[in-house]
């Protein structure tokens, strides 16, 4: 180590009354040429290993038709890279020989990076995950575990609330009365039905719903002048709830009513 605990200086030094110099004086370490050459050879060998591993994975998947889990590729490559990086840090960047505070600085920086990645992965890795306890309550557009009303003993809705309350109202008053009520209640205005003016939201990319984007045939010509009510997916038309309520939450358009 570069900060040996030295005995107190025998001669009093005015410039260094506490003898702190003993903690900073050290001879600079000269790494032996053999060490440097060995590290280079090990690094080159690990490069060959990581390339070989990637080729082997490719061979297993394409020739042997065994599908490896997706993480194998990343874990193998990153493990080897970490070993290589440690060697560079310890022997080429002299962390093994220099003041330990340098190592502390670097490890702290890696800790910050790890936190950064950890919380990102925590979010990304669990987006498709449904807690098994809540699984029976999960429904597209659902909130999960909410009750039909304020009473504590009201039944739990195992459905999107939008769909639940619509179906209950239709069962209560009948579809014709429902449509009549709806036509009065949801007259087109800001936020309902066809927008009167163009909205900034219309320019947001909706990848994945452009028909024929990646198909061999040319996409159908888009009629920009057609009124919104005439588009293939009518939103806000007065008779919108006439279609099957069950299909509503699965539709690509967000439920407007």
């Amino acid at each position, binding site marked *: 180590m570069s900060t040996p605990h030295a005995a107190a200086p025998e001669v009093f030094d005015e410039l260094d009354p506490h003898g702190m110099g003993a903690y*900073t004086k050290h001879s600079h370490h000269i790494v032996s040429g053999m060490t*440097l050459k060995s590290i280079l050879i090990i690094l080159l060998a690990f490069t060959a290993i990581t390339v070989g591993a990637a080729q082997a994975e490719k061979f297993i998947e394409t020739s042997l038709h065994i599908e490896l889990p997706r993480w194998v590729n990343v874990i193998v490559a990153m493990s080897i890279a970490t070993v290589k990086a440690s060697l560079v840090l310890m022997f*080429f960047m002299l962390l093994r020989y220099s003041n330990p505070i340098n190592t502390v600085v670097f490890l702290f920086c890696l800790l910050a990076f790890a936190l950064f990645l950890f919380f990102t992965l925590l979010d990304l890795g669990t987006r498709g995950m449904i807690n098994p306890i809540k699984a029976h309550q999960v429904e597209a557009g659902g909130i999960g575990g909410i009750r039909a009303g304020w009473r504590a003993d009201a039944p739990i809705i195992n459905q999107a609330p939008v769909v639940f309350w619509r179906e209950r109202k239709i069962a209560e008053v009948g579809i014709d009365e429902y449509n009549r009520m709806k036509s009065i209640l949801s007259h087109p205005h800001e936020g309902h039905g066809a927008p009167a003016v163009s909205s900034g939201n219309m320019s947001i990319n909706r990848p994945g719903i452009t028909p024929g984007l990646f198909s061999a045939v040319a996409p159908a010509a888009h009629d920009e002048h057609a009124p919104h009510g005439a588009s293939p997916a009518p939103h806000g038309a007065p008779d919108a709830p006439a279609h099957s309520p069950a299909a509503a939450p699965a539709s690509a358009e967000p439920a407007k009513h």
Partner: protein
Amino acid sequence: MTTLDTRSNPLGADVQGGTEPLWKRYLPGHHWRTADEEFDACTLGFWLFLATEVLLFAGLFCGYTIMRFKFPQAFANGSSYLDWRWGTLNTVVLLLSSYTMAASIRAFQMDRQSHGRRLLAATFVFGLCFLLIKFTFEYTPKLSGWFIAFDPALSHYTELVDNKALGGLFHHVAGYGGKAPGQFFSYAFSEDPWEPLWWSIYYCATGIHALHVIIGMTLIAWCFRRALFFKAYGPSHYTMVENTGLYWHLVDLIWIFLFPLLYLIH
């Protein structure tokens, strides 16, 4: 009577009429007790700077992680356009340059001036090789479709060569180019809608890395000049060449991670 502070002034050699190399005449700043303290402080400061550099690349790696998580197929497709052989060659070149850099510091520590300078020059040349390989065989064909005549990949596309330039030095392959980042993307044969995103990550990561290679080469050239004209580095003073070395090794360190992440995924 010398009151001029000549310790870091190369012209001091003339002022004092001495022929001592600069590293022997160097004195630490007056606010340091010992030269070792100054060296430690400089190195610690440089490690703090390296930490910020790592965090710069951490943002890129995090972006890579998010995008690869969300669009794995685009990344697998995108990576398949890269040739792992060029990536491997560049890795070897950078590892060799890291070795010559470390060996050069060792040579200066032992006052082997001309050996140290040769190793510095070798490091510079390896850096130049890295950039040339990157720009000639990777960036240029993918962006524009223009291959240099002796590019081994060109043999696959001889049927598609539709133009030549500079007396046949460059061959243009119809349809190959346009693999540009984001909105500049115009490659017509993609199979995944998110491939432009892959190219954004690829050019951002390798471009910032290449910028660091250029900065590192500039520092190495500056060290070489000081070593050549003033013998600035020796056993008792080599802080600048040491810190330049640290910077260069960091460039290598980043590439050690970029290489498998970009070239070896499938």
